[in-house]
C-alpha cells in the first residue's frame, strides 16, 4: 500500500470517527458539521475530475451544485404541498424519495453540463474560466428572477427527504447516508482515473497535441470528464439541500464555485482525497475561527497563499510527496 493510500484511509476513518464520537457524546451539531464537510468534499471530488485530472479550471461548477439543490427542493416541495410538479404534457407528481431525487439531480446536471461544456471547451485557459463563470451566473440570475420557486428568498423543505424506512432527520443516519455516497463516488472516480479513459484524460491535460496525433480528439475526452464531474457535484448539491432543508440561489453563486476550487487546491489538485481534506479544513476553520471573528476568511486566505506558494500538492502532497498515481 502506498503512503497516499494509507493517508486516504486514515482521512476517511477520521471523518467517520468524528461523526461517531460526536454522536456518542451527544453533540449533534458536530455530526452536522462532519456531514457538511463530507458533502462539500463530495462536490470537491466531483470538481477534481475536471480540474485536477482534466486540467479544466471550471469557475462555474456552482451551477451544477445549485441544479442538484433545486432538483431536491422542487421535487420535495411539490410533494410536501401535494401539488403536481407539472401538468403538461403529462402530469408528474413531486417526490420525497432520495434515490429518485438523486437520479433527477444527476441527470439534470448532466444534461445542462453537456451544452455548457461543448461551448466552453472550444476555448482554453482564461477564456474557459470566464465562460464557465458566465454560464453559471446566467443560471444564478435565472433562479433569482423566477418567482415560482422562491426567487431570491429560496425554497424551504419542511422535512428531510426519505430513504426507505430510515429516520433521515437523525443526524448520524443522515451522515452515514452521505458518507456511503461519498465512498461510492470516490470509488467510481478512482476507477475512472485509472481506466483507459483516465489515461486519455491525463494525456489531454499534459499533451493534447500528442493525444490528437494518436488519433483521439481531446475535446471529446474533456467533455466527458466535464459532464461526469458536473453530475457528481449535482449529487452533492441535492444532499446539501437536504442537510439544510433549504435551497437558495446562493448555492448557484460564483462564491460557491470559488470555494469548490479552494477545496481542491487546499487539499491537493488531482489527489483523490484532496478535496475532502480541503473541505474539512474549510468547515473546521469556518466553525472555529468564525466564533472568534467574522473575518475568518483572512487566515484562510493566508493558508491558501502558503499552500499555493510552498505546497503545490496541497495538504496531501505535503504529507506524501509527489503524485505516484499520475
Amino acid at each position, binding site marked *: 500500500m502506498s503512503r497516499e493510500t494509507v493517508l486516504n484511509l486514515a482521512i476517511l476513518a477520521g471523518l467517520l470517527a468524528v461523526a461517531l464520537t460526536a454522536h456518542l457524546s451527544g453533540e449533534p451539531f458536530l455530526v452536522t458539521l462532519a456531514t457538511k464537510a463530507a458533502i462539500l468534499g463530495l462536490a470537491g471530488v466531483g470538481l477534481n475530475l475536471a480540474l485536477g485530472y482534466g486540467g479544466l479550471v471550471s469557475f462555474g461548477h456552482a451551477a451544477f451544485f445549485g441544479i442538484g439543490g433545486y432538483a431536491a427542493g422542487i421535487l420535495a416541495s411539490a410533494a410536501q404541498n401535494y401539488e403536481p410538479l407539472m401538468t403538461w404534457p403529462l402530469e408528474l407528481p413531486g417526490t420525497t424519495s432520495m434515490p429518485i431525487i438523486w437520479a433527477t439531480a444527476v441527470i439534470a446536471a448532466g444534461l445542462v453540463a453537456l451544452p455548457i461544456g461543448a461551448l466552453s471547451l472550444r476555448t482554453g485557459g482564461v477564456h474557459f474560466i470566464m465562460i464557465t463563470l458566465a454560464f453559471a451566473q446566467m443560471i444564478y440570475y435565472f433562479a433569482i428572477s423566477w418567482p415560482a420557486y422562491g426567487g431570491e428568498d429560496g425554497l424551504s423543505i419542511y422535512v428531510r427527504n426519505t430513504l426507505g424506512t430510515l429516520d433521515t432527520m437523525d443526524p448520524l443516519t443522515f451522515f452515514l447516508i452521505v458518507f456511503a455516497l461519498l465512498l461510492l463516488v470516490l470509488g467510481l472516480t478512482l*476507477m475512472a482515473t*485509472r481506466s*483507459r479513459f483516465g*489515461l*486519455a484524460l491525463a494525456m489531454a491535460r*499534459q499533451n493534447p497535441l500528442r493525444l490528437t*496525433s*494518436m*488519433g*483521439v480528439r481531446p475535446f471529446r475526452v474533456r467533455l466527458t470528464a466535464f459532464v461526469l464531474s458536473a453530475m457528481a457535484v449535482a449529487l452533492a448539491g441535492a444532499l446539501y439541500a437536504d442537510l439544510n432543508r433549504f435551497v437558495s440561489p446562493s448555492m448557484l453563486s460564483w462564491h460557491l464555485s470559488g470555494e469548490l476550487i479552494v477545496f481542491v487546491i487546499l487539499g491537493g489538485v488531482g489527489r483523490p482525497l484532496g478535496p475532502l481534506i480541503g473541505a474539512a479544513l474549510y468547515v473546521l476553520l469556518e466553525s472555529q475561527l468564525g466564533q472568534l471573528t467574522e473575518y475568518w476568511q483572512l487566515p484562510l486566505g493566508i493558508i491558501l497563499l502558503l499552500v499555493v506558494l510552498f505546497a503545490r500538492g496541497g495538504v496531501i502532497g505535503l504529507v506524501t510527496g509527489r503524485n505516484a498515481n499520475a
Partner: protein
Amino acid sequence: MPDPILKITGVSKSFGALKATNGVTLDLYPGEIHALIGPNGAGKSTLIKQITGEIRQDAGTIAFEGQSIDHLDAADRARIGLARTFQISQIAPDLSALKNVMLAVEARAGRVFRFFRPVSRDLDLTAAAMAFLHDAGLGERATLRAADLSHGERRQLEFAIALAMRPKVFLMDEPMAGLSPDGSKRMTAFLSDLRRTAPILLVEHDMEAVFALADRISVLVYGQVIATGTVAEIRANPEVRTAYLGDEAA
C-alpha cells in the same frame, strides 16, 4: 512500380504575404525513405503539418492510398495510419513511459472510452505496450516517469508511441535533433530497418544521416521543391549545391 502510398499535389499555404509552401508536389512509395531537406524556413515543418492535418492547405490536394484525405482532421488522419514524430518529443511527462505507449495501443484499437477496468491490470494492453518499448530499445526504462528520461530516451519513447500506432506511413520531423554523434548513429541504424515496417517521409538537417538513409531526396527552398532524386543525383545537382548544400557535399 507500385502506386505511391502518399501523394501530395500542388499544396500551398500562405501566412499573410509569406508563402510557406508554394505548389509542393511530392510522393512516398512503399518501402522507401524519402528525405525532405532544405534551409531553415523553407517550409518543411509546414508541409509536415499539412500532411498530418494540423494546418489546412490553401490549395492542392493530399491523397493517402489513392484517396483524398483533405476533408479529414488530424485525429482522423492519425487513425487511418499516418504516424508523426515531433522535433521536440511530445509525451505526457507525468505518466510512465509504459503508460504513454499503452495509451497509443488503446487509441489504435479505438477503445479509449472505457471507464471501469484499471489499465495496470490490463495484461494484454501492458504486454503490447512493453513489446513496442522493447522494439524502440526502452524496455528497461518502462516504469520511469517520462519526465525523468534523458533526451535520447524521450526520442526513443516517441518512436515506441509511433510504432504502437501500427502506422502505414511515418512522418518524422528531425528525429536526429539534439542527439549525440553516437545517438545519431544508433538512430540511423534504427530508421534504416524501420522502412521495412512502413515508408518514412523524413525531414532532417543531419546530412550524413540523410545521405546514409534516403532512397530519394527532395529539396525544398522558399516553399518550392527545386529537385527530387536519388542521393547521387541530388549531390551532383548544381542548383541544389548553390541553394543549400554548399561545399559540404563536395
